[in-house]
């Protein structure tokens, strides 16, 4: 057993070479790799921490936004509710107005119907009254209604002589309008009576079926009339009163 110094030197050289080789191919790559990985992990952890902070900030912002949104939402709901209320009120007002208008229209229609009815009633009443009076007069007094009307008008003309003369002025013609043609005898009587009042006037006769039974005398701008309109108006008034009282009575009886 001895030490071979050449081998010792060779082994020292070998050992130094091995140190260099392992430093070059083992320690440096491994340690640098570990360092790189550590720094990468540290960087990633840093990034994760930053990301976590950002996430926290984002979460807080989101929660704030959500809260604001909820508040805004409730405000919006309230606004919509008020708007809807207003809309409802407007619609109700429009509907009420429309109903009122329809009611008024209906009322106007009723009034017009009533007026038309009354008008028709008046005409019918006048006609009926005229026929009844005529028949009654003929049956009871053996007189003609037209003639009596004519005489009545002439009677009136006598009392109105000054007004009639002044109104006639320069007029040369008078026109007597009747519902139906007057008998010639009656026409002659009226013509004679008028000649007594205004000799220059020439009297003409005409008929108007739309006119109420009676006689209307026109001289210039003056008009003297006697028709059954006043009687039928009175009759209509009486009928209306009776209808109104009857209606009320009916309501009282059945209400």
């Amino acid at each position, binding site marked *: 057993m001895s030490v071979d110094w050449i*081998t010792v030197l060779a082994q020292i050289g070998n050992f130094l070479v091995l140190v260099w080789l392992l430093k070059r191919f083992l320690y440096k790559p491994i340690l640098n*790799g570990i360092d790189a990985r550590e720094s990468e992990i540290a960087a990633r952890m840093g990034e994760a921490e930053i990301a976590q902070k950002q996430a926290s900030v984002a979460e807080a912002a989101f929660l704030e936004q959500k809260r604001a949104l909820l508040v805004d939402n409730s405000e919006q709901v309230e606004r919509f509710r008020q708007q809807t209320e207003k809309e409802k009120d407007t619609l109700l007002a429009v509907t009420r107005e429309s109903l009122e208008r329809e009611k008024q229209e209906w009322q106007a229609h009723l009034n017009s119907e009533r007026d038309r009815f009354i008008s028709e009633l008046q005409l019918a009443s006048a006609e009926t009254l005229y026929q009844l009076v005529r028949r009654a007069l003929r049956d009871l007094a053996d007189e003609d209604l037209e003639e009596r009307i004519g005489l009545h008008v002439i009677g009136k003309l006598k009392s109105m002589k000054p007004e009639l003369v002044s109104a006639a002025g320069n007029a040369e013609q008078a026109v007597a309008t009747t519902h139906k043609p007057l008998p010639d005898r009656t026409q002659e009587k009226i013509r004679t009576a008028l000649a007594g009042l205004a000799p220059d006037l020439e009297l003409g006769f005409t008929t108007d079926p739309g006119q109420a039974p009676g006689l209307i005398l026109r001289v210039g701008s003056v008009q003297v009339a006697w028709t059954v309109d006043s009687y039928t108006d009175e009759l209509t008034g009486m009928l209306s009163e009776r209808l109104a009282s009857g209606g009320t009575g009916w309501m009282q009886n059945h209400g």
Partner: protein
Amino acid sequence: MELTPDETTLFTVWGLDISETVGFTWGVMILLTLTSILVTRNLRPDVPPNRWRTTLEVIVTAIQSQIEEISPRASRHVLYFSGTLFLFIAFSNLLLVVPGFTPPTASLSTTAALALSVLIAVPLFGITRQGIGGYLKTYVQPSVVMLPFNIISEFSRGISLAIRLYGNVMSGAVIAGILLGVAPFFFPVVMDVLGLLTGLIQAYIFAILATVYISSATATAGKPLPKEKDK
């Protein structure tokens, strides 16, 4: 009985006899270097480490942590030196199980070379760390009277290292040789297993002692060294 592989020629290159000690040392060197190259050739931080790289990382970080336990301020050069000592001795001893392989550490020349390396490395690390004046001052500590004792201590340290490693490895081989004569089929296996254990322990002890010597030579009351990083 042959006690040293220095005298056995493994092969001849250009008329130069290469002994088993040097030849098998080259073998161990090639094995370690090739393994390192193969494992670390595709080393990128973005690629997850494979099992081989993890194994090497475990070995290197274990050595580094052992060195840091002894000397927290040790530079990476201590790791290169002590780590290589450990790996070389450990692999030389572990390859004992390969038939025909004689551990280079079974040669007193190898252990002497390693001890000499430590002997030279200790003052070099000390001078690098403290400067030549600061290092030489440690020989006259605590007083000038201690100078010869310190010098003797320094040398005996290297000799003890060499003899310890050689003795342990060689004793294993000698005991295995003796037992081979007694019970040729049973004892050698047991002894080889024991040899693996003692080989690893010796590698550990040798590397640790070298680190302790280096750290004691580099230990000063000055500022700690900044953490190194290889470029």
